[in-house]
Structures are given as structure tokens and as C-alpha cells.
């Protein structure tokens, strides 16, 4: 047995040990395939998302990372003409069979979009949107939810004096944090973020990243990003997607410093993408 083989065996064992320390799984994806019409967008995806961690999904445009993210709350079906097969287990059930209503799934799994999309309503009405659709009408409770959610989203101090003004008066970065507050208002298990800072300036991006670090104490976050530095800064695990396949999925540290697959190495180092 040569030294390199021993080293490799040790490395593998180390990884196995690390894996044992992973938080308990929230999403377990196995054999997931997805077609838009005849175009095969996701190919045999096996991926496990862990609780209260930030999982980043990176990869070049068109690699299926957004598609995968939107499969997790079944928003992908809005595109129409979508065929899905495989298993995505969330809270003990396969979300792809229709036994769990999408409305229930999406109440537990919030989503933040690429472009900030607050509703053309007041800041207050935006935050209480979720609680209200679930039938909470009590003003005191709603007031409390607004304050808590905006505080968690680090927006309270900036907007507490103008809660009843239109959300469109906020800056882009504030709007995106409002959208995060809107998600937090229903106390979700998971928040899916689809390139949430790609439309924001560096200062606002920084604020959103700090916010992600804070809220991961309470929620699991899956974030699709084009920005590799961002993935390296904020995520615990990173999945590298290419042409609809998961090339590599590991601790962010490993992916960025010691990737197993040469394709990952090339992408991280800007050889393509």
C-alpha cells in the first residue's frame, strides 16, 4: 500500500466522520429527474439538505440550479409542461406525489426571489400577508408578528416609523429584506433564495448576507448564487451543478479548497462558467 493510497483512505474516513456530524436532513432528494417539455433539465439528482445550515448551489447559467431550487417548493410547476420523476422527501413525505398540498408545502418553505417582489401594498400589509392568508386576523398578534419579523430581517429600525407607507418607497436592498421578513412572518422551516442579491448593490448585498447568517439559527436556507465568493462566505455546504447534474456536493470549505472533481476545481477557479 503506497502512502498516497493511505492518505486517500484517511481523507475518505475523515469525510465519513464529518458526514456523521451533519445536522439532521430536511430534504432528501433521490433520483430526481425533470424535463421542460423534452429538454432534460435535472438528471438523477441525489442531494440532502441539512437542518439549520446554509446550502449554496452554484454552477453556470442553465445548469439547473434554479430549477432544482424551485422543485423544493414545487414552484417549478408554474412553468407548465413540466415532467418530474424521483423522490424529494420533506418531513417524511415525498412532496412530488400530490398528497401534500402545495399550499401547505409553501407555507413551510418560503421563497425569496432574484428581483425583490414586495406587493404594491404597505410595508405592514406585506409582512402580514402570510399570516393573513392563514386566517390570522387579531390585530395585536399581527402587530407583534410585524415587529418580530422586521427585527429578524434587520429592517425594523429603518421602517418602524413608516409601516403603513407603500413598500415601493423602499430601496432595492430594503425591499429584499422586506421579502425575507415576509417569509419569516409565517415561521417557515426552510427559506429558498434564488440569487437574492444579484439585483442589489454591494452594501445591500452585505446586509442580506449578514441577515442570512443570523436567521440560519432558526431556519434552513438553500441559496442559489452566481457569486462564488458569496457561496464561500455564507454557506456551510455547497453543491456544484453542471448540465443538470450534481458534480460535487460537500462542505463549502472542501469544495473551495480541495474539490474532488476536476470540473469543480475548474469552475471554482474561473476556467469556465
Amino acid at each position, binding site marked *: 500500500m503506497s502512502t498516497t493510497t493511505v492518505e486517500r483512505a484517511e481523507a475518505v474516513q475523515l469525510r465519513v466522520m464529518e458526514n456523521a456530524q451533519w445536522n439532521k436532513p430536511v430534504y432528501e432528494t433521490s433520483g430526481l429527474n425533470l424535463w421542460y417539455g423534452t429538454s432534460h433539465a435535472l438528471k438523477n439528482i441525489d442531494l440532502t439538505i441539512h437542518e439549520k445550515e446554509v446550502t449554496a448551489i452554484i454552477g453556470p447559467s442553465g445548469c439547473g440550479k434554479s430549477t432544482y431550487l424551485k422543485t423544493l417548493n414545487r414552484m417549478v410547476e408554474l412553468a407548465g409542461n413540466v415532467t418530474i420523476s424521483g423522490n424529494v422527501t420533506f418531513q417524511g413525505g415525498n412532496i412530488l406525489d400530490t398528497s401534500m398540498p402545495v*399550499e401547505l408545502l409553501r*407555507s413551510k418553505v*418560503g421563497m425569496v426571489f432574484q428581483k425583490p417582489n*414586495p*406587493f404594491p401594498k404597505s410595508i405592514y400589509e406585506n409582512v402580514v400577508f402570510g399570516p393573513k392568508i392563514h386566517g390570522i386576523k387579531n390585530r395585536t398578534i399581527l402587530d407583534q408578528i410585524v415587529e418580530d419579523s422586521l427585527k429578524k430581517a434587520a429592517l425594523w429600525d429603518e421602517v418602524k416609523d413608516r409601516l403603513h407607507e407603500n413598500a*415601493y418607497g423602499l430601496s432595492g436592498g430594503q425591499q429584499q429584506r422586506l421579502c425575507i421578513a415576509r417569509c419569516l412572518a*409565517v415561521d417557515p422551516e426552510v427559506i429558498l433564495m434564488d440569487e437574492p442579491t444579484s439585483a442589489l448593490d454591494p452594501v445591500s448585498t452585505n446586509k442580506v448576507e449578514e441577515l442570512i447568517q443570523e436567521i440560519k439559527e432558526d431556519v434552513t436556507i438553500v441559496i442559489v448564487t452566481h457569486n462564488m465568493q458569496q457561496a464561500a462566505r455564507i454557506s456551510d455546504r455547497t453543491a456544484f451543478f453542471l448540465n443538470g447534474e450534481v458534480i460535487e456536493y460537500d462542505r463549502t470549505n472542501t469544495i473551495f479548497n480541495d474539490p474532488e472533481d476536476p470540473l469543480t476545481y475548474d469552475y471554482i477557479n474561473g476556467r469556465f462558467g
Partner: protein
Amino acid sequence: MEQAEVMVHVEKRLNRRLMSNKIGRFVFLLATLFGLFVLALLLYRVVSEGWSYINWSFLTGKLSTDPNRAGIFGAILGTLWLMAVVAPVTMILGVATAIYLEMYARPNKLTELIQTNIANLAGVPSIVYGILGLTVFVRLMDLGNVVLAGGLTMSLLILPIVIVASQEALRAVPSYLSEGSLGMGATKWQTIRSVVLPVALPGILTGAILALSRAIGETAPLVVIGIPALLIPLPGSIFDKFTVLPMQVYYWTLDSSLVAEYANLAAATIIVLLLVLLLLNSIAIVVRNKFTKRF
């Protein structure tokens, strides 16, 4: 060398290009003025013939064969009653249809067929709707030539317009808004009610009010249904016989060879009708501006 050649061309063609631009401008201005001129002429004739006949007793008086005693209160009331049927029927049916087609219907052959038919129905001559109304509402349902039958017929006539306008308004709502709502776990109906409809409302209302103004001025379907030429009792409910402003214009114009002053009464009625339309269109604009600001 090449550039010099291009410049020669540029100079040679420049005068021609500038000239055709000027001619174009002149032709377009002429086309605009033609329309404006005819419209102004029409307005001038109507106002000069009818203005002096508009007074309080004309507006509040009942119909009469005597031009000096004739009033259009019955026609005004009839128009209002007709609108009281047409407005709710078209708004409810039109918006509901648009919501179904735009938000719920799967894009398949059947939806496509319905869609094409609605677009075609908007182009069907109004007299055809009159025949339909006569057959279905007046005779088959045995309503008689009352406000309800006329209103339902008129509703059918403008329904395609309201549907198409509402569909366009719904389609114009950015998809990221409805995605935001659906992503929160809202049902489709909750999304429509609390996010999509408020944003689409100005467009829907504008379309509906413009369609209503068309219904107010329409006569052909009512001629077919049978509107009495000289109706003295005022309509008090949707089950009463009625007449409307444009019908009154039609009958007075028809009989103006017998009594010359009827032409003036017709002109005066046209003025009232135009004012009502102007009022409705202003409401459409105010409503649109009021709701647009909120977005």
C-alpha cells in the same frame, strides 16, 4: 475612398428624404384634421339645432307628441335602468370569465377555441345580438320587451369587450407578484383576490366603463327587441317596458318629416347623451388614475 462614395449618395438622397418626410407629415396632419373637422361639424350642427331646446322641463318631462311639451325623463330613467342591469351582469360575468381563462384554464385546444370565439364575438354586428335577445329573453324566457330583456341582450353584446379588456389587464400584472404570493402558500384564489385583482383593477374598470358607454349609445339590438315609440309611463323596475336616449333620438329623427321640431328634440337628446358619455368617460379616467397611483 469608400466613405467618399457613401457621402455622395447621402447628399444626392438627402433632399428627397427630407421632402418625403415633409410630405408625410402633411398627409398625417390632413388625416387628423379631417376627422376633427367632421366631428366639429357634427357637434356644431347638433348644438345649434338642439341647445335651445334643453331646459328643465325637457329633462324632467314625460314623452309627448307635442314637441313643446315633450320631455326625455322616461328615456333618461330607461337608460339608467338599463345600465343597472348591464353594469353588474357584465362586470360579474366578464371579470369571472377573464379570471377563469387567464388564471385557471389549462392552455389546451378547448381554451384556445373559447378564446378565439370570444375575440370573434366582439366583432359580431349588434343587430345579431338583438335577434338573439328577441329569441331567448323576450320570447323563450317570456320576459317581454322589458328592461331586463334589453339589459341582458346589451350585456351579451358588450361581454366580449369586457372579457378581452379584463384578460389584458390581468395579463399585464407582473408574474413576479403572483409568484411572491403563491410562494407564500397562498391559494390561487387568494393570490388573485389580494394581489392580482387590485393591480389589474384600473385596467378592468377602464375597459368596463368604455364598454358601458358603447351599450348606452347602442340602438340596433333594442330596435329588434321592440321598444315602443311613444311610451308615457316611466319605468319603475327592471320588469317594466322602457325606452332609452338613443332610441328616442332614432324615433324623433324618423318622424322629423312629419313634425319639423322633432329634429331639434333629437339634437337636444343627442347633447344629453353625449354629456352622459362624457361623464362616464371622465369617471373611467378618474378611477384609472386613482387606482394606478397605488401601484
